[in-house]
């Protein structure tokens, strides 16, 4: 497997359903050894880490009523909220940086979609699927209307 193949597998993993690392593992396994490669690669990733995750949860369930554990959890649970927010910020960062280079209006369009999705889910009982489809549709409409600054010079050169 060369670097270009790996980059393509990585890009594919970003847009298809499921956990990125699992998809990447599936693609690499399939590319190298076909279906047996895919099965062993996925089992090698999922069984140990999934098993440990379940065992840790089981262990936690046994000790969760201890006062010291409860005190620790009162610190860990708020930290989990902070980490979830950080994951959201880190996911948005590369796209927002790209959008800012394309112009302030494009950046505004991205932020509008982000805020709209958050408000729609937070304040209404709309299904997350609908919210995501609306976000995608809004992006097609808004980004078609708002010009991309970085693409215009190329067009002029071509003309």
């Amino acid at each position, binding site marked *: 497997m060369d670097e270009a193949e790996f980059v393509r597998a990585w*890009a*594919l993993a970003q*847009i*298809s*359903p*499921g*956990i990125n690392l*699992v998809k990447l593992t599936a*693609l690499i396994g399939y590319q190298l050894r076909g279906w047996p490669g*895919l099965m062993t690669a*996925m089992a090698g*990733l*999922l069984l140990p*880490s999934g098993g440990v*995750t*379940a065992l*840790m*949860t089981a262990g936690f*369930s046994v000790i969760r009523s201890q*006062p010291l554990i*409860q*005190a*620790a*959890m*009162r*610190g*860990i*649970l*708020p*930290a*989990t*909220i*902070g*980490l979830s*927010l*950080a*994951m*959201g*910020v880190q*996911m*948005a960062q590369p*796209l927002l940086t790209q959008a800012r280079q394309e112009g302030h209006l494009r950046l505004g369009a991205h932020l509008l*979609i982000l*805020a709209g*999705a958050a*408000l*729609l*889910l*937070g304040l209404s009982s709309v*299904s*997350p699927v609908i*919210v*995501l489809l*609306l*976000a*995608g*549709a809004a*992006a*097609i409409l808004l*980004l078609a209307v708002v010009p991309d600054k970085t693409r215009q010079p190329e067009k002029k050169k071509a003309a």
Partner: protein
Amino acid sequence: MNPLVYFLLFLKASLLSTGGLGNLPFLQKDLTLLGWANNSDFVTAIAVGQISPGPTGLWSISLGYLTFGWLGAVLALAALSLPPLLTLVVSASYNRLEKLPAVQDFTRGLSMGVVGLTLAVAISLAGTSIQDWRGIAIAAAALGLALSKRVPVIVILGLAGLAGCLLYGL
């Protein structure tokens, strides 16, 4: 709880998301409506998912155990294993689709939507897991440390546990 419905809800969440906490909004909505999980199950499962080895996306295995025991963990693992196989199908049509501007814009909108959903769910979960100013301070500190990218997640959660012991345990 019906194991088949339970499995299908996890499968749906996995099919409609691309990893990390992407499946969280779906599971939170569906399982909470059915009364099969509460907000503290979700926050605990996310914490275990961050601490345990492997991708964060495995947090739903922990949610499975908390809400449905070992059967729940196995069903959650199965639901996580199937959608990645679709990558092979996407792989076949990807070269033709990726260049279309509409597809690129749609994918961008989806990503922004996923981030928006993540923020909305995190804020709704904060209601049950953050009880006072000390909780707010810990959440803010964890956010700052995670964004600095200098401190591993497991260290952040270890410090948070220690802070919990010191602030609430003594």
